[in-house]
């Protein structure tokens, strides 16, 4: 394989996206990775769909910025993006861990069913939209309509949240430390319980963040939109 260097097992493999295609990388990652510990992807240069639909407990390092859908549909792998990530990072993740050292664009963690996504910078619009399980921790701020229609899972936001946080949220729980510019339809601030404190403490620790769970507010669903109510104001 061109551009691949192998060291002693468990091996570390390198890909250079200036010399190889994303398809070659993904096909390799979809193959037998029993003797692979780490894959380092160099010169990603914002390429789309890096490390998509991986199903192996391997470590993947993306040495730079990723385009759309990095680590999408991840299962078991630990994917570290050393730069920023484009829209849909870790979308539909099932398990495993994805870390973004920089900023994440829109739809980060969209529809993830499981796994753990950490964004060390800010996240753009619709962070955690349609979340179906899994946990997201954002060290910075999140953009508008984050957690839109989020069905299950947890999102910890250490910074601020913009407009429409948790619009039409189902059973996902949000924890926000900073300001919430506005809450979306059916999203309400709820009291933090002992379980919430324990959950946030554990999530912050898993993300390696030094902060106190007590500084966070809980946002959840008021459950008023669960049944179609003709008497409700139809502007919604």
């Amino acid at each position, binding site marked *: 394989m061109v551009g691949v260097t192998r060291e002693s097992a468990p091996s570390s493999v390198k890909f250079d996206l200036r010399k190889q295609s994303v398809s070659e990388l993904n096909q390799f990652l979809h193959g037998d990775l029993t003797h692979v510990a780490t894959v380092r992807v160099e010169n990603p240069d914002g390429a*789309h769909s890096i490390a998509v639909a991986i199903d192996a407990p391997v470590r993947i390092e993306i040495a730079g910025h990723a385009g759309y859908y990095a680590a999408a549909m991840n299962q078991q792998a630990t994917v570290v993006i050393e730069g920023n990530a484009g829209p849909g990072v870790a979308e539909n993740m099932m398990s495993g861990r994805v870390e973004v050292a920089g900023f994440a664009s829109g739809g980060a963690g*969209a529809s993830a069913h499981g796994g753990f996504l950490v964004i060390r910078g800010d996240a753009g619009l619709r962070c955690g939209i349609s979340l179906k399980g899994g946990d997201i921790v954002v060290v910075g701020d999140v953009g508008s309509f984050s957690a839109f229609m989020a069905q299950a899972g947890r999102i910890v936001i250490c910074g601020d949240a913009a407009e429409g946080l948790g619009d039409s949220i189902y059973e996902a729980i949000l924890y926000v430390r900073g300001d919430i510019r506005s809450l979306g339809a059916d999203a309400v601030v709820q009291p933090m319980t002992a379980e919430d404190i324990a959950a946030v403490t554990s999530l912050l620790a898993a993300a390696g963040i030094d902060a106190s769970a007590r500084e966070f507010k809980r946002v959840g669903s008021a459950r008023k939109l669960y049944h*179609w109510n003709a008497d409700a104001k139809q502007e919604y």
Partner: protein
Amino acid sequence: MATRPVPEMPSARDAVQREESALYDRRILDYIERAAATGLYEIRGLGAKRRLPHFDDLVFLGASLSRYPLEGYREKCTTRTILGTRFAKKPIELDIPITIAGMSFGSLSARVKEALGRAATALGTSTTTGDGGMTQEERASSKTLVYQCLPSRYGFNPDDLRKADAIEIVIGQGAKPGGGGMLLGQKVSSRVAKMRTLPEGIDQRSACRHPDWTGPDDLAIKIKELREATDWEKPIYVKIGATRVFHDVKLCVHAGADVIVVDGMQGGTAATQLAFIEHVGIPTLAAVRQAVEALEELNVKEKVQLIVSGGVRTGADVAKALALGADAVSIGQGILMALGCNSDSYVQGGKHYSAEADYRLLKTASGYCHHCHTGRCPVGVTTQDPVLEQRLEPEVGARRVSNYLKTLNMELTMIARACGKQNVHHLEREDLAALTIEAAAMSGVPLAGTSWIPGVQPT
């Protein structure tokens, strides 16, 4: 001679006057009555019920002195259909150009999904998952399974993606272009709720936009992502509800679709607002023509395949869709009716039972029912109820759907032979004539006995 008494004629003043209003007919009176009584819009199943220009308004020009027919019994007429040749490593190969449309587990029972899979396998065609994800019943019974990727992403996961034979990105459906899926609480059973990651019994409304992509430029990247996820093996279909078909089809082509599915306004649903069903979207007839024109203008007619759906009911409908330029059709409502939707009876344990009492409970009758949304389907098709769903036995259902598909295919080949074609895909626009001006204009086919296509300048 005594005169016989003349019978008294009823005076015009005594007769009950029954002058119907076309504007405020029974349908509208019922609509207003319901709105006034409940303050709710009507949600129902099935597609548009009102009369629309459709395939019935076209006829075939069978062989004559100027065209030579094929013998029905001895000369072969091929129905083999290949979908997804543009980019996929493993295109879909079907024995017939008639597929089973996407319908969710949730709107339908798991037993129905199994019946559909069995029938499709027997006929060498495909089924499609729906807004609830892939059930093991369907994957096990259906030899060729198209996996939908919808805005809701309920149950969507990479393991099922890898198990699929093709992927269909759903942008919209004919019954409600611009609207998302809907499943009312009575059908959100424990199993359905778990698959969709929702609380049991809530009224589910799916998102109408995809969570991780917005416009056509994003769609191109999304399509590539799904190809990467499956190592470029599986064909990617893009399904649109028929609105701005000409532009949408061009955009789908540019975004990299292998197959485009266009669903006209007659397309069915299990639960949608009436206003959506009857008043949003354009007829299938108009949609086919626009889709074909778009593909021809981009010169990709041989590379990108077109599947058409929305009120395809008969072999003649299939033949007309193909003649207009579709590569295949997809059927939803007709398939459910083959299973027994709107039938006055159901078969259980080898015996026929009347279903009329249960139609009456829904305040309807066989032949008039569109109450899929209630989950109380009298024949066990669009239900999650453990008692009602027993009224559809997978083996019986599979046999009925197989019979239906076989009949459609026979009619299709019969018509093709009558037009002198050895391959149903050779049916062409020139084999058709229109019976109405609207149909001529919409389908681009001349009015019978004339060379007139409204809006088209004669060459």
